[in-house]
């Protein structure tokens, strides 16, 4: 290969590589604002070699479960006066910015709640939309004459909670049930929030045999804003016929959140017998 041909090929490869990833690192993934401070911040970090254009917006929404037990976000465009929405009075600054490569930028969140706001927890969702540079359009111009390229944009939605006065939380478990379907243990339950703040914690389920051995288990972060009926699945091996215990536990332990933002609550447990014929 001649040196003259080698150089353009190398340059093309480098260009494609440097324009590859687009998006920003966002931390924390859940924002808590204390009414005594009325402000918080979100850190954006651009790990990519291209600048990222970022826009910030807010809306009201909270997680619910659908009929299949999947946790999805319910968006409320026009929350009524009874909804604990903070979307109308939490503002982000700046709302448009460019995060240069390998640099950090801070988004300030300022709350200006109504003066007569009762004690409690109020929610909003923060939308961080990040758009990178134009994706390189490949193609041989001289022969194709039609070049096609798609720009990638990502929107990340994280939770915000504004806490005023005494806030407390808890959960109640009911309708715990399970079944072994193929090679999976499927677990359903109804989890209702107690208190006046969202329950943020960890759910841990396990299937225990008569000898006390754990035959299947799952563990996942969970946020209960009103009520959830989630379905969880865990891999399980072949089970001998007999009696097993399906156990479910919710705790307010979360390693991904700072301990000071966690509202502690006593662990809640439930269990049912599961018979394998």
């Amino acid at each position: 290969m001649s040196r003259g041909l080698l150089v353009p090929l190398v340059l093309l490869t480098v260009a494609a590589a440097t324009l590859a990833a687009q998006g920003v690192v966002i931390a924390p993934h859940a924002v808590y604002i204390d009414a005594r401070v009325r402000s918080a911040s979100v850190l954006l970090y651009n790990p990519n070699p291209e600048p990222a254009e970022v826009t910030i917006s807010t809306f009201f929404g909270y997680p619910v479960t659908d009929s299949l037990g999947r946790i999805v976000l319910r968006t409320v465009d026009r929350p009524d006066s009874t909804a604990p929405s903070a979307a109308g009075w939490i503002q982000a600054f700046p709302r448009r910015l460019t995060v240069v490569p390998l640099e950090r930028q801070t988004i300030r969140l300022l709350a200006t709640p109504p003066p007569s706001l009762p004690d409690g927890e109020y929610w909003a969702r923060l939308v961080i939309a990040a758009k990178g540079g134009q994706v390189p359009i490949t193609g041989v111009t001289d022969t194709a004459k039609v070049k096609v390229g798609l720009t990638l944009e990502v929107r990340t939605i994280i939770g915000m909670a504004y806490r005023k006065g005494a806030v407390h939380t808890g959960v109640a478990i009911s309708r715990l049930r399970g079944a072994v379907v193929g090679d999976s243990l499927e677990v359903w339950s109804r989890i209702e929030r107690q208190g006046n703040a969202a329950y943020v914690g960890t759910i841990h389920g396990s299937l225990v045999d008569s000898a006390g051995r754990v035959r299947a288990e799952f563990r996942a972060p969970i946020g209960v804003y009103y009520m959830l009926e989630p379905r969880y699945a865990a891999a399980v091996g072949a089970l001998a016929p007999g009696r097993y215990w399906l156990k479910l536990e919710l705790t307010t332990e979360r390693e991904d959140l700072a301990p000071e933002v966690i509202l502690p609550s006593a662990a809640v447990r439930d269990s049912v017998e599961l018979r394998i014929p």
Partner: protein
Amino acid sequence: MRFRPLSLALVLLGPASLAAQGKPITVQGVRSLTFGAVLPGVPRVISRTDPVNSGQYDITGANNNQVQLSFTLPNVMNGPAGATMPIVFGGNDAGYSQSQAIGSQVAFDPKQSFLATLNKNGRGSVFVGATARPTPTQRAGSYTATLTLTVAYFP
């Protein structure tokens, strides 16, 4: 007992003579070394010239006196539930300023002792930076550690 007043006078003269050489030596931590928000897996470097986040000690003592500076440095910061985060000090991460100005420092290795001379008013400042190296799985929460500066003086 006629000798006693003379002896007492000499004893009293001792501290007075030391005071005449300069002020009692003090070292005071005046600003914490602050990494702020840190992302797992992303090192956070604080320069000793960072006016907001670098650590600072102020030293007072005898005018133009020479002092030896030495640090007791942590290897980790301690966080929630026993979690730790490595903290690293480079050979250029400490600085001494006779004028107590952050923009006018003489760099030194905080892992080695360093001889410094207080200014004509018996003052000086030490600035320190470091690098926090959170692991990719670093647990969320607040982390702290203590940096101690020991100042030995030579009257």
